[in-house]
């Protein structure tokens, strides 16, 4: 009951006129920052952190939370309208959001993203309020083997349910994972895979360089080639009636994804060093795994938009849990928020809930209010985003190329990466011609930096025995499901051969 009183106090605090103004300003700024490829919530929060020293800590954190939420919503917009993920958290949204937009259903995709984000945010607040201390202890029991098993499951869903050529899918995953390993070996500190001894590879390959190369440049070249430049963008239309109808449709067609994303995203968000990106990618994979029509994913299934969008918002709240209870940030943005809290004289850790309950629940309350206003601001901007989509393709295409180049540079501030992005774009164009699925490579480069260290730590823990992934109570079942999924295509082939030989014999 005390918690509820504190939470409602936090909600009332967030609804103060000055705080409300900061929330609306924050979500609008966040929306546009999140939309811009190369910039994400981390940039917005980091850049605007000093401004918050001008207002009291409670208002400051409310403003930053509003930017954080706004950016979470914004990332989806460029994924859907332009086909370029605005941030790593919106990579999975591109898989189905872009095909929906290309089918003239951009408004459905945008509304689904907004509604799912709101649902994810709401569920996460409820989970946070009810189970914060319990979940923190469960998350702590997740060691390296469990986290690696989760990563394996994410890759396995692409292999088992991809519907694409299996060797090409596996090759795509491995390519993304190897690219993620470029730079320095984290354990020994030695340079690794510095291709042709070019020094630009020393800082690794940022996932955005590959994602923008594939989706921004490769995809656009492919669209121009297949349509011979004779398309006038999509035929998306928008009206108030349309938004209401789309909201209804998004709830009907995306409820499964929203539910999975809200719960799974929250839990993955809690895991230290995980956060919203793996949360959204895994939710996409699990939604596909549990769907009756897994083959419709990647073709423009609203569930494929709902799952990652609900998950990334839910994970944002989830990642606050280790930050507040243990002082461990779950994402780069929460790391900056943590820094802000230290500057404001607050010490994150187990004692924070006891010593500063007003601050903690005020923060959670502000998250909820921000989440609501992010939905309102986002829905009111949808006509603008649709208008962008209805621009003639000969204007939209060069704008996307410009955004890709600028976004690629903004991500790493290195021209080497822009050249690399061009290379990836051209390669993606040709690989797509030969039916190589490229989404698994993007997924792998995002999850690679988590997968490799957890595998190595696990094997070190077991003195090289891979059975560690099977004989632990949490990791075991997850690994078994992953193995079954990987073997699923092989089992299908055997089944088909047996049934065809049976028919011959008959």
């Amino acid at each position: 009951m005390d918690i509820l009183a504190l939470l409602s106090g936090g909600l009332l605090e967030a609804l103060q006129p000055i705080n409300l103004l900061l929330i609306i300003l924050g979500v609008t700024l966040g929306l546009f920052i999140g939309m811009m490829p190369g910039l994400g919530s981390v940039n917005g929060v980091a850049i605007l952190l000093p401004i918050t020293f001008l207002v009291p800590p409670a208002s400051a954190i409310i403003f930053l939370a509003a930017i954080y939420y706004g950016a979470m919503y914004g990332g989806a917009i460029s994924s859907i309208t332009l086909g370029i993920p605005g941030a790593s958290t919106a990579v999975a949204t591109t898989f189905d959001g872009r095909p929906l937009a290309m089918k003239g259903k951009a408004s459905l995709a945008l509304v689904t993203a907004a509604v799912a984000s709101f649902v994810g945010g709401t569920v996460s607040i409820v989970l946070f309020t009810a189970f914060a201390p319990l979940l923190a202890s469960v998350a702590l029991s997740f060691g390296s083997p469990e986290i690696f098993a989760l990563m394996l499951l994410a890759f396995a869903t692409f292999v088992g349910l991809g519907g694409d050529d299996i060797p090409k899918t596996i090759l795509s995953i491995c390519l993304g994972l190897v690219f993620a390993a470029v730079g320095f070996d984290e354990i020994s500190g030695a340079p690794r895979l510095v291709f042709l001894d070019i020094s630009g590879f020393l800082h690794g390959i940022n996932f955005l360089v590959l994602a923008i190369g594939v989706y921004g440049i490769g995809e656009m070249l492919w669209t121009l080639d297949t349509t011979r430049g004779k398309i006038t963008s999509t035929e998306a239309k928008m009206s108030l009636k349309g938004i209401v109808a789309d909201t209804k449709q998004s709830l009907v067609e995306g409820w499964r994804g929203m539910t999975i994303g809200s719960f799974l995203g929250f839990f993955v968000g809690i895991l230290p060093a995980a956060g919203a990106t793996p949360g959204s990618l895994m939710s996409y994979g699990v939604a596909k795994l549990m769907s009756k029509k897994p083959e419709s994913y990647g073709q423009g299934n609203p569930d494929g938009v709902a799952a990652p969008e609900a998950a990334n918002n839910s994970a944002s709240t989830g990642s606050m849990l280790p930050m507040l209870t243990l002082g461990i940030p779950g994402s780069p943005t929460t790391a900056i928020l943590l820094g802000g809290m230290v500057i404001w004289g607050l010490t994150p850790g187990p004692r924070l809930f006891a010593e500063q309950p007003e601050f903690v629940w005020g923060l959670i309350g502000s998250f909820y209010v921000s989440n609501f206003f992010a939905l309102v601001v986002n829905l009111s901007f949808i006509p603008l985003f649709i208008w962008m989509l209805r621009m003639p393709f000969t204007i939209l295409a060069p704008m996307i190329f410009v955004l890709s180049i600028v976004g690629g540079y903004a991500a790493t501030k290195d021209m080497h990466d822009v050249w690399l992005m061009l290379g990836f774009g051209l390669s993606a164009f040709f690989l797509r011609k030969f039916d190589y699925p490229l989404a698994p490579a993007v997924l792998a480069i995002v999850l690679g930096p988590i997968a490799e260290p957890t595998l190595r730590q696990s094997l070190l823990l077991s003195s090289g025995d891979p059975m560690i992934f099977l004989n632990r109570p949490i990791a075991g079942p997850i690994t078994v499901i992953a193995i079954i999924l990987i073997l699923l295509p092989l089992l299908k082939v055997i089944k088909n051969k047996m049934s065809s030989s049976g028919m011959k014999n008959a």
Partner: protein
Amino acid sequence: MRRGEFITAGILAVLSIYMMWKSTELDVGYISGEGPGGGAWPFWLSAIMLVCTGLIAYNAVRRTSPPSQSTEPVLDAEGRKTLIQVFGGIFAFVALVGIISMYGAMMVFLFYYLWFLGRHSLKLSAAIALITPVVFFFFFEALMRVTMPKGMGFTEPLFNWLNTIIY
């Protein structure tokens, strides 16, 4: 397309072998007390890639993959022309960044694409090509404090003047 499928698989096989070889610069085995060596993860992943390229080539021999069944060319004459014009424009854009700045290169590219490839009017092409870099400049440099490449020395007076507006 079938020949293209073999060539692509071949290029990826060479890339896999190269990455395996690069991985061996670090230990690819298990080091007692330290766990898997720094090269093990990329080495074995590249090895899996190599196996996959073999399977892709095998499927192409059996003509089971859609590209290996297709008799169409990878790129016809018009496709080649589009690719050269568009990708060539992007390539020139990136090459110009170091000379006339990110914003200058953006302006040239937009004008080239809109006017020459898009066949839009001179007025519209010039307006978009001029306004977009200015909006990007104020968004990135003033609001986000992200500095873009400014090109060679001769662009300095212009950017100094623009900076006086920001600061």
